[in-house]
């Protein structure tokens, strides 16, 4: 289908982008890789009055390590993350996640900033951002990830606020992300991420609720020396994941347990 008509502007820098967004009002939207926004527009589930394209704003596609933080520009694409030597050394879990996002076309165009801003509970990076306490740095300031994913597709971003970069702690220890899906290029039906960091485990779940989830009780169980199987049980305990065409709530809860345990065992192996 063809999207409803809209205005289009290409920003040269972020100041221009925020200024235009302010002028155009809340019906205007930032356009990055377009791989979430354009499909929604084609189905007319989104009908923004205007798009402010930040795709060619310079300086937003850098990846660097800054002390104990890995800083990633909002426009860094999935394929670049997957390839990046810097990411593979500083936070290999992120590179591994990126390699499994969507299909090749999606990985060639979609951006880290787009996934974070879109806040789809099936998005992969939000899980990692949440469990590792990432910071989302914007034109207006900075948001800790734990305050950022508020609800389904809901974040504290203002209409004229643009993400500049996301910073993660460097963490190169044992890690694993298992993404369960029925087709190779699908979104996660459920995803389970584990990362050892500062001597403890961080655990996250994708698509088990309206936002990414951090399995704190399971982290605590591991810290207390309980088994991985017990921790996995904890991770699934009390979850009320959504039911949809792809999986029932019960099945998702089951997957949360199975995948968490597998991810832990494989990371530790």
């Amino acid at each position, binding site marked *: *289908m063809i999207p409803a008509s809209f205005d289009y502007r290409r920003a040269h820098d972020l100041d221009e982008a925020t200024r235009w967004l302010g002028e155009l009002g809340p019906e205007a939207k930032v356009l990055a890789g377009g791989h979430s926004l354009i499909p929604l527009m084609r189905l007319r589930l989104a009908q923004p009055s205007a798009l402010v394209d930040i795709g060619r704003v310079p300086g937003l596609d850098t990846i660097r390590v800054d002390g104990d933080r890995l800083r990633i520009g909002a426009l860094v694409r999935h394929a670049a993350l997957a390839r990046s030597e810097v990411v593979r050394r500083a936070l290999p879990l992120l590179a591994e996640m990126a390699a499994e996002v969507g299909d090749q076309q999606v990985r060639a165009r979609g951006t880290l900033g787009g996934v974070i801003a879109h806040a789809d509970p099936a998005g992969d990076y939000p899980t990692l951002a949440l469990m590792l306490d990432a910071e989302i740095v914007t034109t207006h300031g900075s948001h800790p990830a734990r305050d950022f994913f508020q609800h389904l597709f809901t974040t504290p971003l203002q209409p004229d606020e643009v993400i500049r970069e996301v910073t993660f702690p460097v963490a190169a220890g044992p890690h694993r992300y298992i993404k*369960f899906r*029925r087709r*190779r290029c699908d979104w996660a039906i459920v995803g389970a991420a584990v990362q050892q960091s500062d001597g403890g485990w961080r655990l996250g779940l994708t698509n088990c609720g309206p936002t990414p989830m951090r399995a704190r009780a399971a982290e605590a169980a591991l810290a207390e020396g309980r088994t991985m199987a017990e921790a996995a049980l904890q991770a699934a305990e009390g979850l009320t994941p959504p039911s949809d065409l792809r999986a*029932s709530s019960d099945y998702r809860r089951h997957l949360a347990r199975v995948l968490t345990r*597998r991810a832990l065992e494989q990371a530790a192996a």
Partner: protein
Amino acid sequence: MTTVGGRDEVQRSDASQLRVVGRPLPRTDAAEKIAGSTRYAADLALPAMLHTRLVRSTLPSARLVRRDTARARSLAGVVAVLLGEDVPHNEVWVDVPGQQTEVRALKARSQVLATGRVRYHGQPIALVVAESEDVLAEAEALVDVEYEELPGVFDPEEALGEEAPRVHEDGNLLAEWHIDSGDAATALERAPIVIEGQYRTQFVDHAYLEPEAGVAWLDDDGVITIRASTQVVEHFRDIAAILGVPQARIRVIAPYVGGGFGGKEDMTVEPYLALAVLRTGRPVRMVWTRQESLLARPKRHPMRLRYRTGAENDGTLVAQDIEILADTGAEAYLGALVLLYSSVTAAGPYRCPNVRVRARAVYTNHPPCSAMRGFGAMQVVFGCEAQIDELARRLQLTPDEIRRRNAIREGDRLPVGQQIVTPIWLGETIDQVLRAAGPRPEPSRPHCRVGRGIASNLQPYGRLVWLQDTAAAWIGFQFDGSVTLRCGVPDIGGGQAASLGQIAAEVLGVDPARVTVHFGDSARTPLAGTSTATRQLYMSGNAAHLAATRLRDQTLDAVAEAAGRARGALRLGPGGVEGGGEPIALPRALELVRGLGVPLEVLATFHGPRGRAVARDLAAERVFPDFTVGTHLADVEVDCDTGQIRVVRYLACHDVGRAINPQSVSGQICGGAAMGIGSALTEEIVLESGINLTAGFFQYRIPTALDLPDIEAIALESGAGMGPFGARGIGEPPIGPPAATIANAVRDAIGVRLTELPMTPERVLAAIRAQAHTDPPRPAPTGP
């Protein structure tokens, strides 16, 4: 990745002489399709062309209280908005053959545009014609439709109840077929072993790459010309009936079709395009969105199957008792015939003396169901082959052994009464897949189990004999020796046109590149019938073969006379007319022929076997011309913690009679298997109280290339089919076995029988858990 093998095993008798047939020639349409330059039906812009779009019902069952087009018509750019009242003949009638007595509906009625009520979600109500596509979307929203919701019926079992809401006035039973061969009840009572099972299949969509689309215009000759993506150019007659114009004033052109699979066997865009041309006199274009296509196009019938199978202790089948209940949705379309195919093939490719079949197709307020690759002969494989597999386990026979023991052979009769009159290599297909498969794989992880399964099937090729099927082809030499072949076959991607060219080249001794095939035009190519029912290679292939043979003979007769050579010595070959002296180059030879006033062209018609229509109680010497059999094998790995099935290895073997173009045959086998794997594992149209929840590819999940195993296609050439050079049809047959093959492999891997499609991880897991609660530990796998 794919191989067409097994030929070394085969006596190719007369085939050894073949020069062009049997070679894997690159298809003439392949390069341009890969380059994206093929012009499909709607890839044609005409001056002053208008655009059209259907307004569809948002409810599955409702009275149309008000349909107001005033607001839409007043929108700038809107040229017309048509309602049912604007259609000259808004009723379309479909014959339901064989149902004259028992079922009231002699003929089934449907409307081009709904007037009084709507019966399914997505049913067309109005046709908007506008200057641009942009305007269309806006105009669509401005057509005011007021509904009064009516109770609907969404379950075929419930639909049969006395109190059920009626989808059509004359009741919810569309069609019913019975087979009573021998005495199944008594035989089952006496049989030492009886297996029982119930199975369910789902709504499946064709999901072709090219959606329903076309353009139409009023041509210089005053003929409304419709260039549409269709499998049936003969619909020009139905379109004429709707418009109330002479049939000669409608022309349908079918350019290369981007996938049909039965979904373009019924009319799609054609009547709407024709109506818009009739109304406006201007060229028009209509392209359905993927959403429309998934929403409202006919689907594959979901079926509920109940099987009881009885056998002797040595595995000999003695009885099958089969009940089939098909949800045919809200319109008749081809539902009765689909069910007939199910009934005739339900007992599988086996000898069985006592078979009882009770089959019913029932209206519901679901999207209509109609033709889809396999045409009813697919769903029943899931039931029948599960039974055979369970029987083997009960008797501790291997799955291949039990099938070999009962495999149908030349001279045997199907339960319906039809005798198999050609050698049919079912046993050989079983041997082949097992030989090619080699050792079983090992599990890749500790929580996984592997298993192997096979399943066999039989699928008719060619239409029901009482349809008195014919196909015509015209073939002519040009003066320079190049060849023009005209045949009304729509080329739906199976290489239909290219194969005809290959056949003509073989017979006429010319290079295939010198043959040009004109196809798919109801006015300008001889009518060849539908590209459905796995019939084109058989029917049009025979027509082309017949025409080419006559042309060859009349040409050689004339050359013999003109050149004074012995007729018996002459043949057509690369050198032109060969034999009895120096070869005569073709242009020169044709000059001699013309010198005698002998024409350089032939029009020939091939007639399929004829027969009488059947009644509800099916018993006939012949229902179909012939059948294609095959066997598939899958190795699967099942993740016992998640229920995920991974197909590790897949082989598909069919007796194709003769592979005219082995590459095309392999393509059909791989494609059919891939499509079958999709409906085994992921595909399902989901409806909630008649509302389609899967009207997009985000929801309706077809496997991608990355999700499929490499499919190894094995074509066996018995040379015994009824097509040209002994070919059998291969378009539909490969879609039959996959679901049963995979279910049997899963059974082998984890001891659990999946009885419902698709086999989602969640269903697999539920089955594993259910078994853990009830069953003793499973025995060791006994797969082939």
